[in-house]
């Protein structure tokens, strides 16, 4: 077993936790957390791939690293926007979830 396998399985585990959270969570903040965990899993997969060839003298593959950097910025943009949206929804209606009957 190599560390590649460990981290790739870790990526799978984060996906499980994230997807399960996205399917079950009701509170908007929890949904956002779950999606961010999912993205963490995806990034982990990419970086595990990047480090796979690390045995060679050249070092890790820079391309996935660049992709993940882009991905992190995209993720924070979406997270920020969605959080602002959630706060606006809460301010307007007191809702904190997407379900119809969940008026507080």
């Amino acid at each position, binding site marked *: 077993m190599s560390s590649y396998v460990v981290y790739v399985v870790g990526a*799978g585990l984060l996906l499980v*936790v994230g*997807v399960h959270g996205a399917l079950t969570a009701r509170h908007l903040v929890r949904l*956002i957390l779950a999606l961010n965990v999912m993205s963490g899993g995806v990034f982990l997969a990419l970086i595990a791939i*990047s480090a796979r060839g690390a045995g060679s003298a050249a070092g890790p*593959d820079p391309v996935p690293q660049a992709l993940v950097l882009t991905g992190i910025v995209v993720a*924070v943009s979406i*997270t920020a926007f969605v959080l602002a949206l959630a706060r606006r929804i809460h301010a307007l209606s007191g809702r904190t979830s997407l379900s119809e009957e969940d008026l507080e």
Partner: protein
Amino acid sequence: MTAGLLFDIALVVGLTIIAFRAIHAPDLFVGAVLYIVFGLLLALVWVRLNAPDLALAEAAIGAGITGAMLLDAVRQVGSPARRAPVLTRIGRVAPWAGAVGLGAVAAGALVTLEDRGGTLGEMVRGRVAESGVDHPVTAVLLVFRGYDTWLEVGVLLVAAIAVLGVRRTRVLVPSEPSSEAPPIATAAAGVLLPAGVLIGGFLLWTGSHAPGGAFQAAAVLAAMGILVSLLGRPPLASLSALRLRLLLVCGFTTFLAAGVVGLLVEDAFLRYPAAAAGWIITVIELAVTVSIAASLVLLFAGGRDRAADEAAG
């Protein structure tokens, strides 16, 4: 089994558990704090996996800024959603089944991947010299795949415009009267801010040949800005609408302008003339840093704009 591998396994297990607890913590505030821990652990993973650029970015953006936003949001919308209905067995099992199915298939595919070599990465390493920068990640980001990065700066810009749209405002409004900020915090900010700018500047400068660069620098700057705005004085609040917009847009447009220079001089969009490549890249990075930092501060402070919430609520 080596110690390193054991550490990796422990890290992965810890990540998974903390992620689960973060999502399902009864108290959302705890959830947000756990998410920050998750981000820091992930940064550790990036270090383990030889990705120091990412570790910096993750710590600053993933854990730091996202965490701050979450914590701040939870303060407002933290009241738990009405108790979840009691789920049937299918209702409980189905999400697990779906999630495990997806995770297992993905992990399975990843585990069985053959390392065939001959990747893009090797090619990039071979041609870094042509790019005008020394650090391969920066070369990919700003030169070989500069198009992606340009668009990604666009994503941030769009997020900023969209948040202004959500708030239905043109400028940042201070959320609380500035006089209420505790003097110690103000003093702390007085020290931290210059330090932050300094660190940011260093990261930006070092990015061309070592880990670091525009994103990390911007994240550090933004973190400072966020700290200040937590004191009730968002650093951009004094700006006029036009200046705020200029700040937000300058990274994207500078990048675009550099691309057009390439188009005019070298007949290829985003091709930097060899003689001036270093300079052009520096200018791009500078502008991008300013814009990203401004956008992140806006995304944070624009979202928290409480006065509007109370007025609307």
